[in-house]
């Protein structure tokens, strides 16, 4: 009962925040409200028992990406988006969004219920991991066993993806400051 109340409250806040993002007049407000959106999402993940995901969402979604957006806004300036089309409703965009949203809602009818033990996703390899991981790996947290050991190769791929993303940013934008170019020359 109490968990339903928490879920509904968090979802209601998400709904209010989304409306706020759509109707706000200032880009700065929109970015800050998006940060709050991520924080509420982190709360939702926590309510679903996924504390790891909640950590990441709070740190990356609410913290780092809000900062990146603010920096982008500071570079672009706040005045360039003040278009005169405010208040004009684009029928095509409205129709596209409406049809997509309706299709998504219709699609949820085929989804299995949330958190049921006999959902397809829980019947494949999950029972084996749950039963054998403590004997094979010896640590209580099955999530860590799966991530680091059973699926270590996938996690390696993720780390390489993160590294490659950083590498791309360094190569294209440099490390940010002009005098850092001097540090590069002696390499």
């Amino acid at each position, binding site marked *: 009962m109490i968990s339903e109340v928490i879920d509904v409250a968090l979802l209601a806040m998400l709904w209010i925040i989304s409306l706020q993002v759509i109707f706000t007049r200032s880009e700065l407000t929109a970015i800050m409200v998006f940060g709050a959106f991520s924080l509420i999402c982190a709360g939702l993940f926590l309510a679903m028992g996924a504390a790891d995901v909640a950590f990441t969402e709070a740190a990356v979604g609410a913290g780092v990406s809000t900062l990146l957006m603010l920096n982008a806004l500071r570079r672009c300036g706040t005045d360039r988006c003040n278009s005169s089309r405010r208040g004009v409703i684009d029928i095509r965009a409205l129709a596209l969004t409406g049809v997509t949203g309706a299709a998504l809602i219709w699609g949820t009818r085929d989804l299995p219920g949330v958190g049921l033990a006999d959902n397809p996703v829980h019947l494949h390899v999950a029972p084996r991991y749950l039963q054998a991981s403590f004997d094979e790996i010896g640590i209580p947290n099955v999530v860590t066993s799966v991530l680091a050991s059973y699926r*270590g190769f996938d996690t390696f791929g993720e780390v390489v993806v993160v590294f490659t993303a950083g590498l791309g940013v360094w190569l294209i934008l440099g490390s940010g400051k002009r005098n850092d170019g001097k540090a590069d020359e002696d390499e």
Partner: protein
Amino acid sequence: MSDDIILRIVGKFLIPLVVVFALYVQFHGEYGPGGGFQAGVILGAALILYRLLFGDAAARKAVSPRWLRLQAAVGVLLYGGTGVAGILLQGQFLEYNVLLTDPINGQHLGIILIELGVLLTVSATITALAYTFSADSEEHLSDPQVDASSQSDQLRS
């Protein structure tokens, strides 16, 4: 860079706690939720907070961009190296059982090593992204041409 004394004092108090929490998430990942990715983003957020409060110069003095690049590469190498060590010890890539004589201890060692690699790479990349995207915005606004030419110099070198 903030001149607000309240933010600075609270930040001074909070940043060490955030770093310790990141280490807790890292080393407690066997028992509680968390691991290398979570610890990495929390540590990165702490460094970014430090940079916001105490300015670019202080942050570069504490953690230089060059160090960050090194750290990110070392993380990937540590992860990959743990995998290759499994091959050298007559196992398979990323097979931790062969790292030590007892397979369970080998699993523990392997997981600790690769989680450390994840922590190094993720925290360095997150921090470096913030360094790169938030650098020198005043110069960019005031003097775009000079900046563009210096950037193309950087690309050429």
